[in-house]
């Protein structure tokens, strides 16, 4: 039966057909532009575009939802702290002397009483949230749409030493196995009559903690066997090797590379020359 795979989307798309080098370039450009832009509007548009790109590439909504749920506490905390306490930072960036208040906390509150949430603070938080989302979603857009083997070849072609590329890909391969083993251990615990669904969070946590013992043991045994297997297949023999699959840049790759480069240059020029993308700038 099929096992869970964290990588690889299940259908073909433009993204799956692109060379991994192109996707590496695209991911780099997206991360750089997200890093440069401080505009909440542009940042949000970029994050939205990457999110839509993920969906178009076949990355499951369930995955994106899981990422958002995981990030939600962090993003909420970010919005609150920036909304209330980023006044000085915003003033130094924008030169504004007065900020637009949204509401203030009662002065009687201990320590934070009287703090005011400002519109600019919230917008600055939106900018950081957008950066985070863009960077978080750009990686699966490149990695999940690429077969691990193609990833290795792409990385090697891009100048990454083979063994480093292999270690990277092995980590990706290992994660679903680890996930699968953890699932089977939890299943084994439930088969001992443990009704996890009716346990409180603390008790459930102590039961889950027991997973560590067989999981670590399994990982150690598996790692050693994998090492034996790799050595038995002449993994560490020579620096020269051939490849079953070839990595070639096609017309679509060149178009994407050119567009990515053009986008990066345009974003940088607009930022430096016209303040577009700056916090408090024209857009």
């Amino acid at each position: 039966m099929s096992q869970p795979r964290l990588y690889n989307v299940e259908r073909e798309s433009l993204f799956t057909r692109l060379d991994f080098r192109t996707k590496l370039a695209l991911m780099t450009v997206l991360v750089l532009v997200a890093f440069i832009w401080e505009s909440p509007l542009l940042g949000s548009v970029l994050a939205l575009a990457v999110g839509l790109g993920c969906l178009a590439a076949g990355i499951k909504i369930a995955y994106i939802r899981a990422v958002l749920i995981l990030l939600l506490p962090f993003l909420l905390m970010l919005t609150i702290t920036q909304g209330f306490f980023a006044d000085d930072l915003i003033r130094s960036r924008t030169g504004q002397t007065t900020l637009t208040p949204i509401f203030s906390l009662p002065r009687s509150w201990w320590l934070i009483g009287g703090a005011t949430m400002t519109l600019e603070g919230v917008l600055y938080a939106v900018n950081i949230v957008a950066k985070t989302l863009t960077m978080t979603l750009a990686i699966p857009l490149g990695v999940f749409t690429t077969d691990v083997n193609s990833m290795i070849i792409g990385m090697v072609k891009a100048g990454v030493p083979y063994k480093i590329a292999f270690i990277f890909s092995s980590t990706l391969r290992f994660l679903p196995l680890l996930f699968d083993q953890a699932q089977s251990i939890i299943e084994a615990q439930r088969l001992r009559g443990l009704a996890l669904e009716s346990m409180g969070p603390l008790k459930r946590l102590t039961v889950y903690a027991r997973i560590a013992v067989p999981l670590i043991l399994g990982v150690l045994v598996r790692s050693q066997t994998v090492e034996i297997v790799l050595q038995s297949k002449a993994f560490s023999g020579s620096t020269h090797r051939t490849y079953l699959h070839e990595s070639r840049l096609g017309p679509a790759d060149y178009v994407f590379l050119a567009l990515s480069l053009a986008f990066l240059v345009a974003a940088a020029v607009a930022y430096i020359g016209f303040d577009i993308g700056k916090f408090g700038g024209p857009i």
Partner: protein
Amino acid sequence: MDAIAILDKVSYMCPRSDRLVLADVSLTIRQGEFLGLIGPTGAGKTTLCLTLNGIVPQFYGGRFFGRITVAGLDSLESPVSTLAQHVGIVLDDPEVQLTATSVENEIAFALENLNVPRDEIIARIGEVLEAVRLEGLEKRHPHELSGGQKQRLAIAAALALRPELLVLDEPTSQLDPVGTQEIFATVRELNRELGISVLMASHAAEELAEHADRLALISGGVLLQSGTPDALYGDVDLLQKHDLRPPQVATTFRQLEHAGLNVPRIPVRLDQAIQAVQDLRAAGKLPTPDSRTAPPVTGVGQQPSLILPSPKAPLLSARDLHYTYDNGTQALRGVSLDIAAGEYLLIAGQNGAGKSTLVKHFLRLLDPTTGTVRVGDKDTRDATMGELAQRIGYVAQNPDNQIFSASVEAEVGFALKHLGYSPHVVETRVEEALTAMDLLGDRHRHPLSLPKGDRARVVIAAILAMHPDVVIFDEPTTGQDYRGARQILDISRDLHQAGKTIIVVTHHLYLMADYAQRVIIMGKGDILLDGDVRTVFNATGTLRGTYLVPPQAILLAQAACPSSHRHSMLTPDEVAACLARGGA
């Protein structure tokens, strides 16, 4: 005949151990031979296999004495990567030795590392996939393959190197019987046609007897004997002394010897055994078959008939059960089944027949796509997995995934504490379960420090502590040697005698004749046969049709016993009695 590998007085100790895993082993593997390596678990077979490509001691460390030469290379002086070009290796567990994300990449990996040109790699992929019957699966992810297919892929990956020596460490332990036969036949063909020398460690006695040129018996790290399969498997007493299982025909003829018959040579293959019966009859040493006068063998002789449904109310039942996995595989197609309290049921079938899928429904590990499953009078959909688990104990194939605690005692009491039993009840039940599994002396040890067979007993003890009505053993004999398999099955029999309902899922029919009462044969998600063990095991045509191999003693009986009894034998003892009595 030239040697491809020479082990000269090889001894080996693992790091931080003063026990010899291999002790003064001298063995020559001849060019082009198929050498079988037999021995009980812990004998040193895997270590010996791994010395040949230098993994031992180059990877493991430890203390190594003596000298090994493989294809003219010293195993200590040559790096593993160099030895890998001469020695292909296949390990026992296909799950961990598959590292690529597609079948073709798995095969290509070692070839790429050895700088083999791309066109040659492509040619070899087709060649080896054909050899192991995985054509058309080039693009599949290895994890999408069945257990048997995975192991065939691992073998294909090793074959792709076209090594001079192919070392296989229990390569068929995860396969169904016909898969095992196919792998043996494939390896034999490669051995004969390409001249590849083969060293195969295996417990598959019938197959080694048929295919190996020579056997080496190792026990306690010591090479005890080497010789032809006829010589080694014919020495039934020697094998039994070392907890090894001889081919069933050899056991049958040893029984004839015990009965006073002078057998010139114990046969180890089915064809030899049939011929031996004819020769002994011609020489007047065995009576000629005569079913009219032959007395029936005790306990046998009934005509084959499918079992009638038990008159008791079913404890477990399935009605028109269909199950389709997310990937579209239809694993169960309308299974209807009743299991009464107190039955000992064997569910057999080839890999992928739907055996495990069926039993998982009783525990709500899976819910029916359509149809119903009931435990007692309750639909499983109305019960939680926790509730069902208190009535049905499940022993998984790998006990290590079922062990979480730091001591045997804590492990056995683990679930009880979480289920809210009082300390007194927990203590009493733990005591009972440890006593039943003979683990009282190990109660304070870490479960994972125990041998594999004992770890399985810890899991069984933990299940027994919950006082379940039913215990399911899912592939309990896979990866076990004969002694380990018998130990677990003996426990299952004891539990049955104590009133538990037992369900065993396996494809190792030859082990089950002494245990199972009722047998269900599954194929392609449906029940093909449901009857008493004697009837089903003798339905050899149906068994073969579903890729199961009937026990060899039954095949001998059907070929050599008189027509009135040839479809009612079950064990080597019965077949020997039938032959000795001249017709029954």
